[in-house]
Structure formats: C-alpha cells, structure tokens
C-alpha cells in the first residue's frame, strides 16, 4: 500500500512542488486548502502524471473549531503531514491594526500549531508518523521589517521543537523547515538575491531528502544557516540599530 501525505495549505507554490515530488516518489495525497476548488486542476494533474490517489479537503487554518471535524473527515490518517500554511501580511498594517496582526499571528502560529498538535496525538497513538512544519528564517530573530510575522513563526518553530522533543521516543518524527527566500507568488516582483533564493522544486527535493535522513531542522539553502547565525549572534545593542 502506498504511503499518504497530507498537505495543509496545498495551494501555495511550495506546497504544489512538494505534492509533485512526493507523488513522483509514490505517495497518495490529501490536499487541504481553504478553497478546495482551487485544487481541482492540481489534483487532476497529480493523478495523471503519477497515477496516485489524490483527495481534496476544505481546511481553514483560522477555523480552529472546525479542526476536529476536518480530521474526522480524512479517510485515512496520513503517514506524513506537511504544513505549508503561511500568511505574511503587511507589517505596517499589522502595527496599526490589531485585527490584522491577529490574523497574521493566528495564521502562522495558532492554527498550524493546533492542527499539528492534534495530528501528533493521533500519530503517537498509532506509533509512527512524520510531521513537517514550514516555518521561516524570519522567526530566528525579530526584525523591524516583519516582526509580527516573524514572532508568529518563532512561536511555531518553538512549538515544533517541543513537539519533536516530546515525540522523539514515540516513533513520530518532527521536522522544521526554514526555506529562506523562495521564488513564489509571495515574493514575485521582489528584487531577491538569486544566490539566496530557492525555486519551489528545490525546496521540495530538499524536504524529501531531509525527511529520508530524519533531519530535525532544514535550511533549504545552507547559506541561510550562516546568514541567520550571524544575525542571531549580533549583540542586541548593535542589532537594534540595524535595518535588516
């Protein structure tokens, strides 16, 4: 029987690249997104190219009350779950408007943490599984340019770290992915340094390889580990005067 991958936030470019990669490796897929109609073409494409089973599901990361029903409706508990949900928001708007900030915080921390927590319970009971959370280098240190988003990702990173620690001896592996810049819809038109920017397919291959080797934290482009280490190590007295 084929293993199954559940993708939360399956309409993003990174999620779609991962769907292609895992399907090519023989996984059946459960694709979940707010608007499952937007997944129809992608689902059909995956079936045609890779001859795997693909189901689509409605999932709204802000609807935490609906999580239990969402999980009930999955016909099979996935072997691997990938959470690609994320919402950058707009930093000035998040500063000015608490409701806008709350949406960013809830989309990047509360919702992803709660749904992965619920899946972790079920995987622990079953005795195996893999949980992959796409967090962000923005969570490595709060910066003026995007600290609302960054703080939510920092929370998500910490949650994944704790979950990994708790489940390490329970057969459930938890992996944190920090992609760095990725050439996606979210970054289109931004003048990104090509050496720091990964293509979605590159992210997918890196995630696949990292899962195979049970990596704990993945910086897709290794240079990001160096960059973020330097940023993390800057003394606060100096850091607070920078504009990074």
């Amino acid at each position, binding site marked *: 029987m084929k293993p199954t991958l559940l993708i939360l936030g399956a309409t993003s470019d990174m999620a779609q690249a991962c769907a292609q990669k895992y399907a090519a490796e023989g996984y059946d897929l459960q694709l979940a997104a707010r608007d499952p109609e937007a997944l129809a073409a992608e689902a*059909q494409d995956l079936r045609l190219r890779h001859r795997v089973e693909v189901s689509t599901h409605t999932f709204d990361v802000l609807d935490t009350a609906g999580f239990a029903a969402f999980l009930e409706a999955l016909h099979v508990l996935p072997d691997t779950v990938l959470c690609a949900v994320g919402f950058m928001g707009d930093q000035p708007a998040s500063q000015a408007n608490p409701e806008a900030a709350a949406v960013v915080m809830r989309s990047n921390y509360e919702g992803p943490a709660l749904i992965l927590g619920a899946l972790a319970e079920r995987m622990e009971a079953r005795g195996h599984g893999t949980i992959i959370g796409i967090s962000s280098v923005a969570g490595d240190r709060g910066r003026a340019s995007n600290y609302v988003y960054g703080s939510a990702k920092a929370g998500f990173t910490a949650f994944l770290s704790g979950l990994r620690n708790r489940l390490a001896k329970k057969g459930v592996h938890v992996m944190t992915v920090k992609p760095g810049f990725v050439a996606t819809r979210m970054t289109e038109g931004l003048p990104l340094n090509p050496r720091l920017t990964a293509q979605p397919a590159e992210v997918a291959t890196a995630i696949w390889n990292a899962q195979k080797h049970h990596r704990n934290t993945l910086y897709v482009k290794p240079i990001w580990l160096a960059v973020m280490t330097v940023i993390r190590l800057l003394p606060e007295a100096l850091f607070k005067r920078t504009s990074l």
Partner: protein
Amino acid sequence: MQLMGWGRFPRTEGQVSTPRTEAEIAALIAGGPLIARGMGRAYGDAAIGAHALSTARMNHMLDFDPETGQLVAEAGVTLKDIIAAFLPRGWFLSVTPGTQFVSLGGAIASDVHGKNHHTEGSFGTFVDWFDLMGADGIVRRCARDRNADLFHWTLGGMGLTGVILRAAIRLKKVQSGWIRQTSIAAPNLQAALDAFEATYSATYSMAWIDCAATGDRMGRSLVMNGEHATLDQLPPAKRANPFAARGHLSPRVPVDFPGIALNRWSIRAFNELYYHKGRLSTGTGLIGWEPFFYPLDAIRDWNRIYGRRGFMQFQCVVPLETKAEGLTQILRAISASGSGSFLAVLKRFGPQESRLSFPMEGYTLALDFPVNTRSLALMPMLDAITAGHGGRFYLAKDSRISAETLRRTDPRWAEFARMRQDTGLKAAFTSAQSERLGT
C-alpha cells in the same frame, strides 16, 4: 529584469508576470501589450519584450484518453513532463523538436517540427484543439472545424494571436523507448541529398553536416535514420523493461566560454573528429530516445559555449527545385567566412500546406554563429542566398533578419499583420520580434 531567448541575444529590459489563473491572464492582457513566454527556448527575440506573460505556473495536465492517446494539458506543461508521464505507459510525442525543454504553448505557437516532418508533418498536425484568450479577454476554443481561421493563424503565429491556455494533442503509441538508428556517412553534399531521398520512407531522418569542409568534401554529412523499436526487435534484457531507455545524466556548462574557444580551427577540428567517429560507426543499432531526439539536452546550458555575447541561429528552408544550388552557395559562403558552428543540421522536409508555419517541401539547414562582427557580416549574405533560391526563415530561431527580408521571402506575414491590425491583436500582443519584423 533582463529578458533573452536561448541564444542570449538580443536582450531587452522587460517585466515578467506569472499568472496562476485565467482571470489573472485576462487582467494582464487588459493591462497592455504583452507576449506569452513558455520555457524561453525560442533562440532569438520571439518571447521577449516589454512585458512577458510566463506560462510557467499554468502547467497542469488535465485529461488523458488511453483509447485515442489524446492528452489535454495547460500551455506551460513541457514536452519533458509529457514524456516523463506517458512514455512509461507506452506513449510518445507524435512530433518533437530537438529539445524536450519547450512548453506545449511554445510548440504550438512556433509549430515546431522534428525528424519525422517528411513522414508525419509538424507539431500542429497532432493538435486537435486549443483554447486561446484573445485581446478581449474572451477564451475561444479553436480547432479545424471551429474558429478555424484563428486555429490556423495560431499554428506558427509566434504567440501573436493571443495566449494559448490549454490544448489537446494526440500522442503516439510506441512499444519501447528505444530507436533503431541507421547512420550513413555521406562524403559530400550531393551524397547526403541522395541518402535523404533514398531513405525517404524512414520515419525519422536528419543529418549532421560539416559546414567547415570545403572542395570535394563540401557538405559531407552523417545521415541518421530511425524507427521506434518494437518489442521483438529488443534483446531480452531490454525487453523486460522496454521504456527504461535512458541517456546519461548531464554535465552542465559551468561558465561562459571565452569567445576565443570557438574559432575556425576548433570548429574544423571538432567537425573532423565528429565525421570520422561517425563514419566508423555507420550501420544500424539501438539508441535510447534521449540521445536520439535530444542529444544537446544532455549538455545543460550548452548555449554558454558561445560565450557571454550569445549566439544566433540561422535556419532556413530551400525548396526542392533549388536545393542543391542553394545549399551549395550557403555552404560556400560559410566556409569562406571561416565562421561556423560545432553542429550544423540538415533535414528533408515533406510537403506542408499551412497559414504561417515554417516548413515547406525542401531542405532545411540550421547552424549557430557566435555573436561577433564576422557573423553579423556573413548572415545577411546567407539571407540573400536563401531569398534568391525561394527559401524562407524559421522565426522561432531568428533574432536578426530584417522586416524587408521577411516581406520578400514570406508574404504570408504581411497578410497576418493586416489581420492583426484589423482585429485589435496588434495592440494587445507584441514581442521584440514582432516589432522588429512589423508582424
């Protein structure tokens, strides 16, 4: 950002948009003139301009009918994707150009051809229909019996009739991923032409031609024919897994070669070696689909061999009646100039009636020139010889012929330009090439 084609010449400053939905495409079209761009494998300026609409994210396969072999897919799906998905199920492209790194939309817009043009026609022959979004943002299904004018203007229309959204194409049933290849060493041009005519019934044929050879050896070639190998033609080891024919994984050209790497001596030496290596291995044998159809794909980024300034491809077709005289004059001009390319290709085209497509019955010659003053001086001479022999040019490769040369050699484009003017297409879809050529 800087936009360029595969030849990396010319380059323009332009904006690239990457829509994900039809509604986004309609909004982009409404926002002003643009040109659709697939994999950027047109050699010249056909898919560059002030605004390019990338189909990279419109790349879903939508339907496949295993009874008829009809595949429905979005324009951004590549030929490589199609082979990867369907060769293991016993289907291959009915027509393929010399690279699999082209998009379905680009293959239709250029109406590409392959080694089987003389027996099976161009890519468009196997297109059942496509959906085209016009200047008004309306999607029209075009087929031979529906919006037929638009259908025929779009095959080979270089993206200037609208944005191709999705298409239905017919794949070809094959028993294996292997090709039975026969190669013939032809010591000069006449021998090569004779070999093509003598082996006309072969499904696939093309020749590598030595454009540096002179005198009695001018036009010497290795003529290659091929057929899809059937199961019973495979040795037992291959028969067990007939679609697992693969080439070698590719080296990548790491940096731009310095301009000096390509000179008359290196070209001559390369061609000398290539011919004699080929001459020693004539006969029939099995070869995988990748090295047979896509030898250059094995060297990723091979366009960097021609250096930082890029290269131009010259590809013309001369009609059957003037083939020998026309090709001889072209080869003479090239060898006299000392310019030339590592690999030049000669191919027999079969008859083709079409509104805009490049092929016509005759012989097509394709070769690359580095961008430098010598090439730029030589190429107008080749244009004039081609024009003088009733030939014409392949716009998917072109980066530099003049509007006057196009008008003289291919009057179909003037009619196309009038149609574009009258229907509002000209204001909505423009490329650097359409502006250069006045199409």
